């Protein structure tokens, strides 16, 4: 398990040179407010796993902050804390915290706001996707947090045994690597999207599973697709997902440095590359939809980064940003909100912030 994760991490960040094959991508001029969020002095936004805005402009941030704890139990170790969910108003003023002390806020990796303004958190530690309604109540929980975490290298356990982590079918018929177990047994899930009917699509993920899992709006499992590999319909780490107005499903296949496109049943339609190593993706809502795709070519967010604006056919329209710590630079831009096409919210891991980016040049058409 341990080694697999390393391989995935390595696969995600090796190279990033594919983007150089594509020449003359126009630069989009832009401004950024890097000091957007104003939390109280005793409340800290850490690594931003996900950021999203509601239709009323409220900004939600799911962040790795505070301390991940291992609590000793009777011959077992429990894992808790590590992430929090904050709400800010459109100007960045702190409004409130949601989900205080819930069971599964451990390693924030994503946040999305659905068309009804519900807020969905994705947690790679708890292996859970949680829906908060507009009142802040928990409305749906997908996946289950592993009861315990292995904190020392131990003797190999049978797949599916308690503590071994999910991902194995546990004695069922042999499956292809990464195919996953039908249902909500996630392993480091990363993102969520919805189609027009409210069906839920989850990328699962950066662990042993390499699949998209589809549920109905009540959370009932419908189908899954994918396995580990580089062929069409296979993945090496799924990091982000978006669904366009026609119902086509775009998946950021981070290790294979490509975006794959499927129909709503998971049938492969097309793929495109030329967007570097895609670690975040957002689909605009206008009549002509575009994708914004965050490229991270190094693990530190200091060498090679850009955000691409891409047509749905994969044509790169332009790019902006570079790696670093200053305003208008990005340190692992892990989350993009593009509710407003030329005014983006971009959450970063290493810089502990959300930047509000305003795109200016004609290249944004």
């Amino acid at each position: 398990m341990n080694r697999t994760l390393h391989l995935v991490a390595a696969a995600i960040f090796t190279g990033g040179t594919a983007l150089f094959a594509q020449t003359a991508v126009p630069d989009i001029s832009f401004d950024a407010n890097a000091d957007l969020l104003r939390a109280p002095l005793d409340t800290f936004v850490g690594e931003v796993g996900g950021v999203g805005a509601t239709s009323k402009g409220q900004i939600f941030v799911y962040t790795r902050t505070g301390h991940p704890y291992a609590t000793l139990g009777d011959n077992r170790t429990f894992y808790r804390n590590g992430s929090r969910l904050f709400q800010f108003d459109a100007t960045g003023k702190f409004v409130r915290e949601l989900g205080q002390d819930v069971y599964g806020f451990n390693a924030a990796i994503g946040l999305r706001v659905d068309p009804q303004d519900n807020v969905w958190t994705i947690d790679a530690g708890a292996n859970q996707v949680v829906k908060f309604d507009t009142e802040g109540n928990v409305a749906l929980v997908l996946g289950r947090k592993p009861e315990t975490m292995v904190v020392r290298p131990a003797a190999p356990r049978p797949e599916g045994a308690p503590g071994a982590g999910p991902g194995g079918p546990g004695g069922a018929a042999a499956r292809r690597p990464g195919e996953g177990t039908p249902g909500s047994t996630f392993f480091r899930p990363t993102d969520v999207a919805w189609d027009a009917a409210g069906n839920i699509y989850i990328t699962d993920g950066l662990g042993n599973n390499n699949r998209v899992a589809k549920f109905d709006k009540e959370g009932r499992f419908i189908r899954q697709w994918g396995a580990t590999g580089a062929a069409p319909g296979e993945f090496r780490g799924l990091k982000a997902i978006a669904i366009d107005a026609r119902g086509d499903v775009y998946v950021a296949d981070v290790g294979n440095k490509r975006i794959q496109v499927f129909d709503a049943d998971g049938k492969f339609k097309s793929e495109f590359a030329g967007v570097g190593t895609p670690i975040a993706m957002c689909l605009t809502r206008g009549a002509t939809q575009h994708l914004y795709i965050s490229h991270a070519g190094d693990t530190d967010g200091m060498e090679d980064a850009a955000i691409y604006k891409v047509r749905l056919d994969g044509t790169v329209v332009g790019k902006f940003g570079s790696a670093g710590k200053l305003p208008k630079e990005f340190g692992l831009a892990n989350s993009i909100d593009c509710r407003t096409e030329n005014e983006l919210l971009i959450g970063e891991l290493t810089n502990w912030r959300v930047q509000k980016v305003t795109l200016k040049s004609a290249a944004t058409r």
Partner: protein
Amino acid sequence: MKRSLPLVPLVAALVAAASFTLLPLAAQTRATATNVPVIPHEAVPNFFKNAPGIYTGENMGIATNSKGNVYIYHRANETRLFEYTPQGQFVREIGRNNYGFAFAHSVRVDAQDNIWAVDEGTDMLVKFSPEGRVLMTIGRREDPILSILNMPGNGTYHGRNEKYRFGRQTDVAFDQQGNIFVSDGYFDARVVKYDKNGRFMKAVGKRGTGNLEFNTPHSIATDFQGNVYVGDRGNARVQVLDNDLGWKANYPNVGNPWAVCVSGGPGPKNPGKQYLYSSNSWQDSAPAAGAEFTGEVYKLELDGTIVGKFGRAGKAAGEFATIHQMDCRDPNIIYTAEINNWRSQKILLRPS
């Protein structure tokens, strides 16, 4: 070998200490300087005052800002950063429960009064504005999922020498241009230079005993000319580097430098004469064996000439049980943070 049997309990104690924290590879040694004049000193009694219910734990880092306020970075139940007035009254806490605090190591204040916490649990530097907002971070906390799966126990030297990841880095310093120097650390053995925007410029060093080699570079300071003074603790010397991290000199006669500081503050440059202080700290396990010949702080000219020394190992006021960091903005007022005594002291030196 003939002495090995009586040493067994000591070795066992050292191994036990190593399993927790800071043991240098070489045991703490006697300073080789001789005939050093003693500088009279006194401790301000009970200088730091906390409100009821507020405690500091192991005091790992201490630093003053330009207004004389004092910051103490310490290991209580949680690692915490406290601010005090120049009169020693508790003012407030900074950075509570932020993602970069897990295991305090040191704290420094730069020329703009920003506060830099050096945390060896998260392998991060966190730069706070004077009001306590996060302005920048360098280094990155290990991904929590990877870290729990790979829980390495006590950890070990790896020397991986990456641009933006530390191996239990120990301290930070700044030159007049705002460049950032990091001593790194227990699991690496190097000095890393970043520009003021946190962009990597250069790293030198690996584990060893030669010039530009280190055995736990534990503390770091700069002078107004931009020279860099590295407390090379395990090698029992201060290594002096130029601003481009080229080797200049070794000061090998002041014991094992756990903490170094250069007077004058981080800048801007002022006409005051600068001195280097180096603490030959009593080990953090407070072994009786070392009590007689450690615990003193040396005062040196920047060229390495020893001016004098003060202090000794102990628990009483004015004695030191493992100084881990010093602030010497004013060369005659030394703030000392101590591990074993769970305290910091304000020390007044009486020159001549």
